[in-house]
């Protein structure tokens, strides 16, 4: 579904990604863990070209990303959920979800609204359709953000630390939605600090450190039997 070949990304002098290769299969759930500054968010953001790779190749659903030419087309297939939600504050929850399908896919207003209500139902917020983001809790905002991404019917969902900005008691409701997505067979790449969640939901865990994938494997392999010293020391601090 996503194929990354020899991906390099530098911000000025600082090289953040140093030749990453990664192949995410359809319906696979991949968790990216690692210390902050390791490049895991940058790697995720390269998957929908929010960061432009310095070199290397990213292919999404068979389409190679090559800059502005096809980027909007590819982004329709790739949903993204941000740490800080990034809901549109001047629109209601419903309008947040309806906007992109109407403007990008030229879906009719009625159809967009029907779909948006279904999605709000799915994330458990049917009664919040007409609320503005400022009237919702963090957990509710993030669930609306997930619904907004799903409205484009993406083939892949990218999550960039989706629970890091939430109060602890709200983390569960967001993870529940993500868990059900995974169960329904959505292809997902998740940057997360929720080790318990990664262990439970991910098919594969990538330990990212120093701008590359240092170690990867099933949750059992990574969490029970890490091979690398860096992985062991990281896990001992966070588990």
């Amino acid at each position, binding site marked *: 579904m996503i194929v990354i070949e020899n991906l390099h990304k530098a911000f000025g002098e600082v090289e953040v990604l140093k030749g990453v290769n990664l192949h995410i299969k359809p319906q696979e759930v991949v968790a990216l863990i690692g210390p902050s500054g390791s490049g895991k968010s940058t790697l995720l953001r390269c998957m929908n070209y*929010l960061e432009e790779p310095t070199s290397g190749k990213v292919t999404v659903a068979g389409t190679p990303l090559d800059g502005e030419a096809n980027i909007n087309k590819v*982004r329709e297939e790739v949903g993204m959920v941000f740490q*800080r939600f*990034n809901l*549109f504050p001047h629109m209601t929850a419903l309008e947040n979800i309806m906007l992109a399908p109407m*403007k*990008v896919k030229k879906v009719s207003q009625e159809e967009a609204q029907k779909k948006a209500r279904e999605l709000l139902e799915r994330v458990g917020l049917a009664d919040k359709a007409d609320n503005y983001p400022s*009237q919702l809790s963090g957990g509710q905002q993030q669930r609306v953000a997930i619904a907004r991404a799903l409205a*484009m019917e993406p083939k892949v969902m990218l999550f960039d630390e989706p629970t890091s900005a939430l109060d602890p008691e709200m983390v569960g409701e967001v993870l529940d939605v993500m868990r059900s997505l995974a169960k329904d067979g959505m292809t997902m790449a998740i940057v997360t600090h929720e080790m318990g969640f990664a262990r439970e939901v991910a098919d594969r865990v990538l330990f990212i450190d120093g701008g590359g994938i240092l170690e990867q494997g099933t949750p059992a392999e990574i969490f029970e039997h890490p091979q690398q010293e860096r992985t062991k020391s990281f896990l001992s601090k966070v588990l």
Partner: protein
Amino acid sequence: MDFNVDLVIQSFPLLLLGAGITIKITALSVAVGIVIGLFMGIARIGRIKIFRWIAAIYVDFFRGTPLLIQIFLVYFALPLMTGQRSDPYVAAISACGLNSGAYVAEIFRSGIQSIDKGQMEAGRSLGMTWVQTMRYIVVPQAFKRVIPQLGNEFIALLKDSSLVSVIGFEELTRRGQLIIAKTYASVEIWTCVAIIYLIMTLTISRFVAFLEWRFAKDDRH
């Protein structure tokens, strides 16, 4: 000093006619200024280099030279380009609108830059183009945020519109001059003119405060 009240009362209708024209050219210039300013403000932070350059030159020129000179330039340069005598109306609104557009461009630029960049990222990641994201997401939020500065700009423009009297345009200030030329009642007429300007600017500032309050209420929801 005698203050000739009868004269003020007699001249008042004529001055009000002038005030009407002042309002008209200010309103039209504001409209021109907002349209130009919005596009120039966006061009200044857009990705197309040539647009950035054009916008920067435009803003520098119209903020860096006196409005009075701009009015003369437009008034005398237009006939050279069109081959016809300048219509003072067109010249006045062009000059004031272009001048205001430069200030409005800077207001919009700072307003747009104050919107969290996560908004643009969210829009783009949903497959919307840069232009769509600007139009539906960033600009509407920026617009609300810059209403107080826009209000100040329009008050300034209303006062500066008095400068178009130099090309014979009979707005409030010019009317005052003409009445004084006949009656020599400088103090009476200029006092009266000042009060009419004051009423107009206060009305605008109250209206802007009202808009601000309305939008602040919207945000609270």
